């Protein structure tokens, strides 16, 4: 989204990676600062909020777990939008965006899984249950890892981006189906004794820190995504210059 939402309004400006880099250089310090502020605010709110009378302090895991889970979805959406950018407009920045987002998505998904597991131990008495949400997040995690592996297996970055884009979109269409089928599967197998997380409604006291943390995580994602895109662009520039150097050298001896 970072590039695409802008890319549609100011496509010509952003078509040029140099301008994009200049923009990143301007935005990134502010975005990072804002992210840090929001994270500090969210964590303070999270730690000062009262614990749940049933779950005690463990409920605070939610302030990390839920935003991470939400970002694991949003990150895939960003990748899907970038994939459309790659396939329809063949825009190199869209390639970079999708490639940079995949490890971030995997990271947030992993955080969601680990915190879910840590939360599950005191709540359910076990590190892992085949709960519908955990399971579908786990499948999502596998998809992220598969896409990263695919991207690494190909030498030509442009081709890798286009081929991955097709798979990203197929995955995007499939995620609701996977979610639905895992829910179905879960209602068949779920033992009734497991405490469902979250409870029926969330108290306003938990809601505020949660919202602030969600905003902070979203900002964090965009800051990391922009930085990762910048790094990828610089990496490709270096690769291009190295190629140029190799060609120049062979040109001198060859002719």
């Amino acid at each position, binding site marked *: 989204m970072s590039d695409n939402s802008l890319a549609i309004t100011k496509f010509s400006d952003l078509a040029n990676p140099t301008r994009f880099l200049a923009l990143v250089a301007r935005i990134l310090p502010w975005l990072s600062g804002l992210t840090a502020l929001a994270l500090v605010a969210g964590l303070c709110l999270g730690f000062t909020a009262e614990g749940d009378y049933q779950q005690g302090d463990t409920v605070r895991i939610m302030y990390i777990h839920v935003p991470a889970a939400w970002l694991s979805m949003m990150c895939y959406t960003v990748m899907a939008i970038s994939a459309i950018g790659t396939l329809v407009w063949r825009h190199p920045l869209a390639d970079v965006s999708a490639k940079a987002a995949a490890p971030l998505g995997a990271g947030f998904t992993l955080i969601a899984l680990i915190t879910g597991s840590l939360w599950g131990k005191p709540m359910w008495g076990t590190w892992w249950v085949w709960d519908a949400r955990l399971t579908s997040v786990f499948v999502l995690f596998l998809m992220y890892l598969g896409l990263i592996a695919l991207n690494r*297996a190909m030498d*030509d970055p442009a*081709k890798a981006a286009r081929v991955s884009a097709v*798979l990203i979109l197929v995955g995007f269409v499939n995620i609701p189906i*996977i979610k639905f089928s895992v829910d179905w599967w879960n209602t068949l197998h779920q033992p009734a004794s497991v405490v469902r997380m979250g409870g029926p409604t969330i108290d306003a006291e938990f809601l505020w820190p949660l919202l602030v943390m969600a905003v902070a995580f979203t900002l964090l994602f965009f800051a990391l995504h922009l930085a990762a895109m910048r790094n990828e662009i610089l990496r490709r520039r270096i690769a291009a210059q190295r190629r140029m150097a190799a060609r120049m050298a062979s040109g001198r001896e060859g002719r």
Partner: protein
Amino acid sequence: MIALLVRDLKLSIRAGGGALVGVLFFLTIVAVIPFGVGPDLNLLSRIGPAIVWIGALLSSLLGLDRLFQAEREDGSLDVLLMHDTPLVLTVFVKCLAHWLATGLPLVIASPLLGLFMNMNEVAIGAVMLTLVVGSPAITFIGAVGAAVAVALPRGGLLVSILVLPLAVPVLIFGVSASYAAVEDPAPFLPPFLILMALTLFFAAIGPAAAALALRNAAD
């Protein structure tokens, strides 16, 4: 298009016995399960449908990465790509041929494995029926992975890793429908109909995505 179907069927019969290897793999997977979980017939009959389905899922992925790779190696892929029948249809027919040559033998072999798993007649019939309906979905979704494999220097395993998460819904509804046929309270029809819907959906989306990937993977 009939010509393509006939050619692919002939090829899979003559070349290296792809169908036979798939069935053998299927047999072997299912045969080693009792060594892992023990020869308890009650347990085996309980997990039988699931084991047969997982075996079929893995076996149908086995030869799938060669679907377009083989065409690419001898240059046929170029000619197939140039001829707009449209390409989606070409891919669809190739999937169909692949399923007839490798998926259908698995379905036919499944009752034998059902006997090994001490499943009763109803369960065996249900597994066969769900496999007939569900296994084409695996081929269609696998075609996307096969198309991606064309761009990979070494495809194979990575394709299975990419395709398996996408095949989770097929597995879930295939196995649920098989169990529903045996266990009384669960209704058979809803999961079975959803399985059919999944197959139709993948039959549409799989070849389209595979065609898109093939166009983009050419070099």
